[in-house]
């Protein structure tokens, strides 16, 4: 399968839209919005196509495309830095995830009225950067895209954010860029150690890095990327950042950006430095388990809706890191499934909270009550997100978390128990939240609330569809993820779960 141009389009469409928007006079607000809408529809279609066409029977990297960029200068040899794009079975669902969340993000951003043009320019930069990370196969380009995804956050939060936005934005940016300093140093070291004169990951994956080198530099990638995935104890930027960010940015941020961190651990850590996994993956498992419980307990104490979801994200990303830490195929499968599942679910959460906050101008759980009377659709959608979050069978969260727990029991039973405990804690805060705000006695202060706008309903449907699809029929996802995970070096095979599909032949 080599229709690599489809991947190139993922960068060119939003990148081009960004440039195009630059030249639209800022008073033509609707032109700007429709450009963004058409762009994200186009990228969504492209993403779905890539996900669908990815040949899972063949597995491995597909849609390979490579253009030289900077080569034959200084220490860079042939293809030193190239625009090398490809997706494997892990990246394919992530590409789809970004398409979905980006599209939904534009829909809920329709109501932004302050400096619309600037907003969508930055939004598109972030969106392009995220695609770049998922499909990039060159360390230089990968890091470039990674920074491109992180940096616009600062302006997006500072200009369009709310609650304590200056603090939240600065904290987020500095912590994340601090993480990328570690990644940067790791990339330098890998390049120098390999001595191949290229940043091409396909070449670097073949290099056999020694155990001591790998043990030294694996944590640079693990912690550097892990910070973005909310790795305990570096997670505190995440709730603050989420609360401060405007709705669409929270969605993209929790939905796809945090996944970049976990994805980076797979791409840079597990694939390039597999020799370091033996020593460090148990650490990741422990930290992930701690984050899962700690995030859930913190979420119980919060009164601000966005803080609840922010800490819940920390908790769920803890599951992802735990899954990766198991280093067996079921656990890692679960981690990737959870990345997707949590991505759409949390985007849905933030979209709904945004819809409520814009009318109510508060997110304090204690003042709400009986919202179902005024906002039935809101309550339904919010409820679906909540139930996914606590792992109700039939929704995507269950599939993912079940994999992770089965994987964890195999390697570290105690932490599997801890994970299951935190899933139970999730039930506490989600159900309490639902009981308090959505049901319960109606607070007459909210007489004037209206239900969601049609843009928000559209966004919610876009996000709920994959939640249910993955919940009842996870095969398309597992078919793509499982063979790729099985090919990861150092990942132990402990049989298959759910993977009933005869198509994979495994």
């Amino acid at each position, binding site marked *: 399968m080599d229709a690599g141009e489809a991947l190139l389009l993922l960068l060119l469409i939003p990148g081009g839209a960004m440039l195009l928007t630059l030249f639209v006079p800022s008073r033509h607000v609707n032109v700007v919005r429709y450009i963004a809408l058409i762009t994200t529809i186009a990228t969504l279609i492209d993403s779905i196509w890539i996900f669908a066409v990815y040949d899972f029977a063949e597995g491995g990297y597909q849609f390979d495309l490579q253009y030289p960029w*900077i080569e034959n200068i200084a220490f860079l040899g042939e293809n030193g830095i190239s625009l090398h794009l490809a997706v494997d079975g892990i990246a394919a669902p992530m590409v789809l995830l970004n398409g979905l969340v980006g599209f939904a993000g534009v829909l809920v951003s329709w109501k932004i009225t302050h400096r619309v043009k600037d907003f969508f320019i930055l939004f598109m930069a972030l969106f392009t950067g995220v695609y770049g990370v998922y499909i990039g196969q060159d360390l230089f380009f990968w890091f470039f895209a990674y920074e491109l995804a992180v940096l616009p956050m600062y302006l997006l939060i500072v200009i369009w954010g709310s609650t304590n936005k200056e603090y939240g934005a600065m904290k987020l940016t500095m912590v994340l860029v601090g993480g*990328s300093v570690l990644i940067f140093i790791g990339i330098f*070291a890998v390049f120098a150690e390999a001595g191949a004169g290229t940043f091409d990951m396909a070449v670097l994956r073949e290099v056999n890095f020694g155990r001591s080198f790998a043990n030294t530099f694996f944590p640079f990638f693990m912690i550097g990327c892990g910070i973005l995935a909310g790795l305990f104890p570096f997670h505190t930027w995440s709730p603050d950042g989420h609360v401060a960010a405007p709705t669409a940015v929270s969605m993209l941020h929790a939905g796809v950006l945090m996944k970049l961190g976990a994805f980076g651990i797979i791409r840079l850590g597990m694939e390039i430095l597999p020799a370091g996994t033996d020593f460090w993956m148990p650490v990741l498992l422990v930290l992930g388990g701690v984050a899962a419980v700690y995030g859930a307990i913190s979420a119980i104490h919060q009164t601000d809706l966005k803080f609840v979801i922010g800490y819940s994200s920390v908790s769920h990303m803890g599951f992802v890191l735990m899954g990766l830490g198991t280093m067996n195929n079921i656990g890692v499968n679960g981690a990737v499934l959870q990345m997707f599942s949590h991505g759409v679910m949390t985007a849905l959460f933030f979209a709904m909270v945004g819809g409520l906050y814009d009318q109510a101008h508060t997110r304090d759980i204690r003042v709400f009550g009986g919202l179902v009377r005024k906002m039935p659709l809101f309550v339904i959608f919010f409820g679906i997100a909540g139930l996914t979050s606590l792992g109700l069978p039939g929704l995507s969260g269950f599939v993912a978390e079940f994999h992770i727990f089965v994987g964890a029991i195999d390697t570290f039973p105690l932490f599997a128990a801890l994970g299951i405990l935190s899933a139970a804690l999730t039930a506490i805060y989600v159900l309490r939240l639902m009981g308090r705000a959505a049901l319960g006695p109606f607070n007459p202060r909210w007489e004037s609330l209206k239900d969601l706008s049609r843009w928000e309903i559209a966004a919610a449907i876009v996000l709920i569809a994959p939640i249910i699809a993955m919940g009842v029929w996870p095969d398309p996802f597992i078919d793509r993820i499982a063979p790729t995970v099985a090919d990861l070096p150092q990942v132990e095979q402990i049989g298959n779960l759910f993977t009933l599909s005869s198509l994979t032949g495994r």
Partner: protein
Amino acid sequence: MDLEYQLIIPEFVMAGLAVVVIAAALAFRNVDQKWFGYATAAALGIIAVVTAIAYWNTHDDFGNVLAVDHFTVLFRVFFLGIAFFTVLAAVQFAGDRLKNHAEFYGLIVFATLGMMLLAASRELLTAYLSLELLSFSFYILVGFNKLNPFSNEGSLKYMLLGAFSSALMLYGISLIYGVTGTTLYSGIEPDGVAAGRNIADQLASFGGFGGGVDPDGARPGLLIGLVLITAGLGFKVSAVPFHQWTPDAYQGAPLPITAFLSAGGKAAAFAFFLRLFTEAFLPAANEWVWFVGILAALTMIVGNLMALQQTNFKRLMAYSSISQVGYLLVGIVALNATNIAQSQDAASALVLHLIGYVTTNIAVFAAIIAFYNRTGRDDIVDLRGLAERQPFLAFSIAAALFSLAGMPLFAGFATKFIMFQAAFNNGFLWLGAIGVTASFVSLYYYLMVIKQMYLYEPEGADRERFHVSRPLAGALVVLVAGVLFIGLYPTPLFDVIHSSTESLFEQAAALSAAAVGK
């Protein structure tokens, strides 16, 4: 000896231009003074283009004291370009706030002449004299706003410390002369044999000091000489701990001169640094890499930490430029005595970063000058709401600051990436790590500026949108485009630079080839 005067015609023309500009002001008293500025800029532009075309393929030397090779030509054009943009940005500023415009432009031309000679010098005293021509022009220019006490203070401080550093350097030169018996950097005949006595040859003949071999007892004298020259140069480039004059001089100087000082002054000092440490001192690299490395680390750390506390934009840029010097010094540390190809990569990476940095810095200052022309203020908080009042200026400043912080898309990312990698390859992992961490710290204070522009609404009496003069806006567009171009596709520029740094390593390459031949 036959001296080929045609090789240094651009320098003669520059000297003539400076005199003509000053004389013309006496002759044409009724002409609007801004035309002197535009005329100077036009002349600089023309000289740059003609020099590039006429001399690119020249490879010769002027009595062995001035080399005219790719490196010289590249830097000639580079300095002329810096002067061109500085003058262009200065025209409105000078018209509004300075007197004696023609002398102002004339001194800029003299300073540029000093830079051009400095990059070409391959003899210590010639280099020293060029550096003094450059420095004296700057002493006057910094104090040019003579009614402003800050300007006087900055100028005085700069001059006193500058004179001190010149003395240090001169003493270092005398020691090197004492040890090696020559002030010529290097020089080879077409047949690959060293032409007469020169520093590189002498140092190489000492044969690796590291092994404890010290045949002539030359090591102490050489080391002290190297340290003194490095210290003197450290003053000129404002490396920590020789940086004390910088913030005051930057703050006191008229804004265009701050720009010129931070771009041209640094670039010239580094051209000198590079030529001296490659052509002459490369064989003794093991002797000096460690203290240049410490200097680089200190400069990056202190520069960035001090910048965090600044409230005045010019002082912020002063400390920011100090930290940038630290990054540039990393390029010097990446030089290696034995691996010539790797050294050349390091030198090219350094020049690439230098060009990227200078382009970025001029862009920042051009935008700030445009802002200052309107408001007359230069504190960071005064930038409040600039994104509402003048989006293009705000965008230019933001892009340039992101570039200085080494963020992708912009020049700073690609060039720093290449340069730090060169240091890594030379075994200086710790230095590269400090560099990356320091860039991360720098992001904080650059973001503080960007926050002022984008986050807040305009304040104070003057909140209207305003226009930027055409020439200045045009210059800014070109500079920002340059920053983006270098960031996204540095290959063509790097190729040009790489062919120019080749001439720095001719003797070293010939010597190592001869060593292999034996």
